[in-house]
């Protein structure tokens, strides 16, 4: 019943300001709160209530980002970080999706990998980084391997769950229409499990990005994480804030892009169209 949602009304009155109850109205208020926060921040730093050393004014952070972008410093770091995160993510997907599907169809593969996944998943895998540094030195290889180790777990779990939970009717239909076992794996089971796989990938994407930054912070060198650590060591608060904003924007762009990809790939799914 639609009536249930309406419990905010004051007694004996229809809502006095109906626009407030609309999505647009609520968004407007929240945007207002956001602007007020930013203004308070700007004023607090400009007036000297908070030292700019602790908290740089928003305007200064934006200017710093513009300068870094113009000089190309930020772009080089961003590119390096993006490359590592995306490559690590793609490798995780390329290994993780088939592994998860095969685990769902073959008992032997499940038997071997299931304990590794269930033990490895809850571990703080970042602790293994020194081992990879020991084996592969501090350059791209160890960072990307660390990203893969972190991001692959949610992908394998999602692909496995999606495969095990998919209906048997479409598989049987395909078999009776003459598809071989191997063909159903790719032609039927993979698309059926795709919604869950995409969810797993959506969890893994920020994990890949975060792990990239953490490895960069731990090892230093080129990349956003390393640049932020350097800024932090020199107490360059503007640089730190610029880094935080850049990473956040990069993450948001990646996530939104991936959501769009999901909608495109899963057009056939009824609940996607809202």
């Amino acid at each position: 019943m639609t009536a249930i949602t309406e419990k905010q009304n004051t007694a004996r009155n229809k809502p006095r300001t109906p626009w407030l109850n609309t999505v647009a109205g609520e968004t407007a208020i929240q945007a207002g709160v956001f602007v007020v926060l930013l203004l308070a921040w700007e004023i607090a730093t400009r007036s000297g209530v908070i030292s700019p050393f602790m908290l740089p004014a928003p305007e200064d952070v934006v200017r710093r980002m513009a300068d870094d972008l113009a000089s190309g410093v930020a772009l080089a770091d961003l590119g390096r970080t993006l490359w590592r995160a995306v490559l690590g993510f793609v490798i995780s997907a390329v290994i993780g999706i088939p592994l998860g599907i095969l685990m769902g169809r073959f008992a032997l593969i499940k038997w071997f990998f299931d304990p590794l996944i269930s033990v490895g998943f809850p571990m703080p895998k970042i602790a293994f980084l020194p081992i990879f540094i020991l084996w592969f030195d501090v350059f791209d290889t160890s960072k990307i391997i660390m990203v893969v180790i972190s991001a692959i777990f949610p992908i394998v779990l999602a692909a496995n769950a999606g495969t095990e939970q998919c209906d048997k009717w479409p598989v049987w239909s395909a078999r009776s229409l003459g598809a071989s076992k191997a063909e159903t794996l790719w032609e039927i089971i993979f698309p059926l499990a795709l919604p869950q796989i995409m969810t797993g990938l959506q969890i893994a994407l920020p994990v890949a990005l975060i792990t990239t930054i953490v490895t960069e912070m731990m090892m230093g060198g080129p990349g956003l994480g390393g640049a932020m650590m350097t800024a932090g060591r020199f107490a360059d608060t503007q640089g730190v804030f610029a880094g935080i904003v850049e990473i956040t924007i990069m993450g948001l762009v990646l996530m939104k892009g991936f959501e769009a990809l999901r909608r495109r790939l899963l057009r056939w799914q009824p609940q996607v169209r809202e």
Partner: protein
Amino acid sequence: MNTILRYSPLLLLLLAWEAITRFGLVSRQVLPDLATIGGAWLQLIAGGELAWHLAMSMARAFGGLALAILIGVPAGLIMAVSKPFRLALNPLVQMIYPIPKSALVPLMMIWLGLGSSSKVVLIFIGCLLPVIVSAYNGAKSVNPFLLWSAASLGASRRESLVEVLLPAAMPSVLTGIRTALGFAFILMVTSEFVIAKDGIGYLIAFLGDGGVYPSMFAAIFTVAAIGFFVDRAYSMLSGRLLRWTVT
């Protein structure tokens, strides 16, 4: 018996490891054999270092997590029932949500220095968001008829918040806390690794820098194992708390 069969692939991996080191396929410098790591582990325990650094780390991780739960659960529940509260807090949540919390390590360093407080605050911020969001979503999806039932049986608004909304949102809250628990461990290791004077992350980095690899392996496997067992214990606890869900 069943457990042994289930976890036998792990044993196989250990056997492979042992074989690789035994037959000298790779340098022991790069991959110490299991006996050496075990010996180093015993030494770390006997010297008391491992216990000390672990205690520091656990205090930070669980301190930050506890703060996040104490503040995040009520905040999420109240956001679900009070519109002004939600409209005021949501922009803040939306602003912090997409920031990778690990990126705040250098900022915490500038603001709070190299000691424990910077780690606890970092872990608190990292854990707060999943807790708030799960409490809010849990409370939002509570069947309104449950609240109505409580009201018709005489519960006040505040009573029904604690007696109905909180338990009804509990499955979602517990899932959120589990995510936060994972974050707490990752942020703890990361922040101690990058910059600290003590804690298990610091110990690992210190041993690695000094080239004491068997001890480094031992410390790494200790924190990984603790992460695993804490998660298991938490799952069992929340399973008990949620006995009522499905049988």
